[in-house]
């Protein structure tokens, strides 16, 4: 069902095989220019990692992609159609682009199952039965099926993040954005979340992941994007980025973070 409605008959511009295409995007907060002339895309089935030091604009880019921030300049295309200009419905677009937050952001008033059901029922208009069935399916996938009755505050960080991933998956988006999904976790819980993400990647889910987990970026992604001071410095396959980066800035960032 969600697959059918995502295909647009008449693309206005760009390439329809690209789920999301960012074109000359810029973002300023007041006079602070945070993103500058970003060009970048995500194709079906790709796993793209975004790396870069803190403050380089990674979160802002992700938040622009699902319109939690409004870009100052440029455009975002969904299957070739502009979502900033034209008749594109923002809330409809957002159901195709899921988001997993650093701080989990599970709905505190709802238990784990309800967290995964509410969007399906209230936004996608699925019946409660179907929604619960799907929710259970994804909760099992992330190993949270036994905690469906728990409220968020009764869960550990790792459990919260896995439930949040299930909530996003239950909407069956075309691409799932992850903003440093393991950065708020205690070290012993990082592994369980990364394992879920590896499983998702190998099951063919399209993912865009902002991460400081270099091993994950290297082993799981098809492409790695290195950002610095609001621009994309390098966008290439992991082998190139990690072994033979073309830019000095990429090399020095990796030397620093990999302690080599």
């Amino acid at each position, binding site marked *: 069902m969600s697959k059918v409605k995502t295909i647009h008959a008449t693309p206005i511009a760009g390439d329809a095989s690209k789920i999301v295409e960012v074109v000359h995007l810029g973002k300023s907060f007041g006079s602070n220019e945070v993103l500058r002339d970003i060009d970048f895309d995500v194709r079906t089935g790709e796993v793209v990692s975004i790396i870069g030091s803190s403050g380089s604009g990674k979160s802002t880019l992700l938040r622009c992609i699902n319109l939690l921030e409004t870009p100052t300049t440029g455009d975002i295309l969904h299957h070739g159609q502009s979502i900033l200009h034209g008749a594109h419905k923002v809330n409809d677009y957002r159901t195709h682009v899921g988001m997993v*937050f650093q701080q989990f952001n599970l*709905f*505190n008033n*709802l*238990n784990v199952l309800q967290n995964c059901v509410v969007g399906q029922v*209230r*936004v996608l208009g699925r019946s409660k039965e179907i929604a619960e069935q799907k929710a259970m399916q994804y909760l099992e996938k992330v190993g949270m099926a*036994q*905690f469906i009755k*728990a409220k968020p505050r009764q869960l550990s960080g790792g459990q919260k993040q896995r439930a949040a991933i299930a909530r996003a998956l239950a909407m069956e988006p075309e691409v799932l954005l992850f903003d440093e999904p393991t950065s708020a976790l205690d070290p012993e819980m990082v592994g369980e979340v990364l394992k879920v993400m590896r499983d998702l990647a190998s099951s063919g889910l399209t993912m865009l992941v902002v991460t400081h987990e270099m091993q994950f970026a290297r082993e799981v992604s098809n492409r790695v994007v290195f950002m610095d001071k609001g621009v994309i410095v390098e966008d290439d396959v992991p082998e190139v980025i990690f072994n033979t980066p073309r830019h000095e800035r990429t090399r020095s960032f990796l030397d620093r973070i990999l302690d080599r």
Partner: protein
Amino acid sequence: MMYALAAATPETFWAWVIFIIQNYGSLFLIGARNTMFIAITGTAVGFAIGLLVAVVRTIPIKPSTPTPIKAVVRLSKVLLGVYIEVFRGTPMIVQAVVVYYGSLQLLGIDLSAMVAGILIVSINTGAYMAEIIRGGIESIDRGQTEAAQAIGMSHVKTMVFVILPQAIRNILPATGNELIVNIKDTSVLNIISVTELFFMSKSAAGTYFRYFEVFFVTSVVYLIMTFTVTQILRWLERKLDGPENYTVMGSQTTPAGTIHVHHGDHRPGLGGK
């Protein structure tokens, strides 16, 4: 004759109190009933008004919002701001007189005192509740709103299914407080002859000029009402907080069981119905 009257009328404070209760008991009961009715209805309607106003006042205006919608939202926000300022900035006793006589003189609507009373308490409470609820909404972590938006919820859906259930739980004590205040403050409606407890007491006191004794009884009746409501609200809050533990569903790897959480701070659920 003089002697007979003296024998029939009480002489001590407590004798007067008993005499008043015996003779005017039903008047106090009617007054108390009307007071409770106005206070509860007014608080409930005021809560609904406050909810509506707060939801409108928290509509985000983005650069991408179409201009006509932007204009309507901005204008609504200004008007609602004026409403809040006016009704919080003037005494309810003055509002009562203005609305009661003004509606007849300006609009030709002859409100009954009771209807006017409920109207005034509702609008007045609405102005306070709007600010209380807005505070409640704004105290909810931004991440909750962002997560709701990220799955495609509109502002209204975000409010109804995610933010308000949490905000309302948080402002329940403040709402209870509004009800208590209203039970006491309906007394100002005696100015437009609403037959609430204060008005009834004044009538009773006027007959024998026993203001102290009558209003002593009146105080006790008010106290009973507010105390009872306080206890009921406490019970309600505890009930809404729900059980302190949750059940783990059995699976191949983990046996079923119950987890006890001591710091558990449950919020009432709305979704998943």
